[in-house]
């Protein structure tokens, strides 16, 4: 049986853990608020790019752009996986990994080759152990810079044009609400966009230079901003997941402390009772 001192020591260590989880929760909360702002700030640009692109597409639907056309034979599928840099965030990473594993199974049934582009180390190390072909690994650094998405976007387009990959998906945790994240999978190459139809000024527009050139640069930008948005969403979702995980860890620590405290009191009481009965026993032995 544990002595009172052992239990006291245990209580102290649980208290320390509780303090750490509490601090981690607070940090995650502030980071989450910041990243939510970043998502809101990125929105108008993303919407405008989409709007411009669908306008140009509508104007020149006959324009052929290889980035929009689905390839007849798909040999290599690329997955862009966004995970976190650190753990302590509940099922955040394992959800993404599970979703990807299912997608890969489907693709492998159709005997397609798979390659990975990892954003965030957790996914990178997992898929490395599984021996999937890795074409790039980028750690996620704070704050999330747009230039990172630009780099990744241009790599993807380059590989797509040189036919190293035939399609690309991006998989990440979507920030749905404070308590829920949902794994999202989007195809970013080839792009699928439905042009808006309702515009009335379409034919009155002057295009400089011609629509084909415009469209190509717009698509590249659109892919960049899609990646950037996914990164921001994933980061916000990560902080939320961590917040929730650390909150329940703090609660569990509290429960554990109260149980241990109860146990400590009991052991202490038992020791006192034992001591008293010893004294009484001794006295009785003397008086006879």
């Amino acid at each position, binding site marked *: 049986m544990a002595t009172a001192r052992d239990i006291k020591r245990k209580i102290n260590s649980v208290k320390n853990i509780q303090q750490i989880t509490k601090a981690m929760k607070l940090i995650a909360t502030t980071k989450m608020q910041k990243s939510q702002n970043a998502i809101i700030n990125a929105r108008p*640009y993303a919407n405008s790019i989409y709007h*411009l692109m669908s306008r140009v597409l509508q104007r020149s639907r006959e324009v052929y752009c290889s980035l929009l056309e689905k390839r007849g034979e798909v040999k290599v599928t690329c997955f862009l996986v966004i995970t976190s840099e650190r753990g302590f965030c509940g099922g955040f990473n394992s959800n993404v990994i599970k979703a990807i594993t299912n997608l890969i199974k489907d693709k492998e049934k159709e005997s397609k080759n798979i390659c990975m582009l990892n954003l965030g180390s957790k996914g990178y190390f997992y898929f490395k152990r599984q021996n999937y072909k890795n074409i790039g690994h980028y750690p996620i650094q704070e704050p999330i810079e747009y230039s990172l998405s630009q780099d990744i976007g241009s790599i993807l387009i380059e590989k797509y044009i040189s036919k190293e990959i035939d399609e690309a998906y991006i998989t990440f945790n979507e920030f749905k609400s404070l308590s829920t994240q949902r794994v999202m999978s989007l195809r970013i190459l080839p792009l699928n966009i439905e042009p808006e139809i309702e515009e009335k000024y379409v034919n009155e527009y*002057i295009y*400089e230079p011609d629509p084909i050139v*415009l469209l190509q640069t717009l698509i590249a930008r659109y892919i960049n901003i899609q990646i950037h948005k996914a990164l921001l969403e994933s980061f916000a979702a990560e902080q939320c997941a961590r917040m929730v995980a650390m909150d329940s860890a703090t609660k569990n620590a509290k429960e554990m402390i109260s149980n241990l405290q109860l146990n400590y009191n009991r052991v202490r009481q038992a020791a006192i009772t034992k001591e008293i009965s010893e004294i009484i026993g001794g006295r009785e032995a003397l008086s006879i």
Partner: protein
Amino acid sequence: MTLQLEIYTPVQEYLKKEVDMVIVPGKMGELGILPQHTPLLSLLNEGMVKIKTEGKWQEIKISEGYIEVGSNKVTILVDNVLT
């Protein structure tokens, strides 16, 4: 008569206000845009955007991007505002 000018980058809404005139570095040469301009969509080179508000000029250095001119509304989308 004024123009509604909006400048967006991927990380922020940089500017949103009523202006008298704006001059941008278009791909095919500088473009001066006054109210009632015809609808236009153009690529922008890296360079200076000059904005006239109530008689005063303001300059902003931008990287490559786009300009869309609609009905009295100018939207500028750039990767980066360099100033």
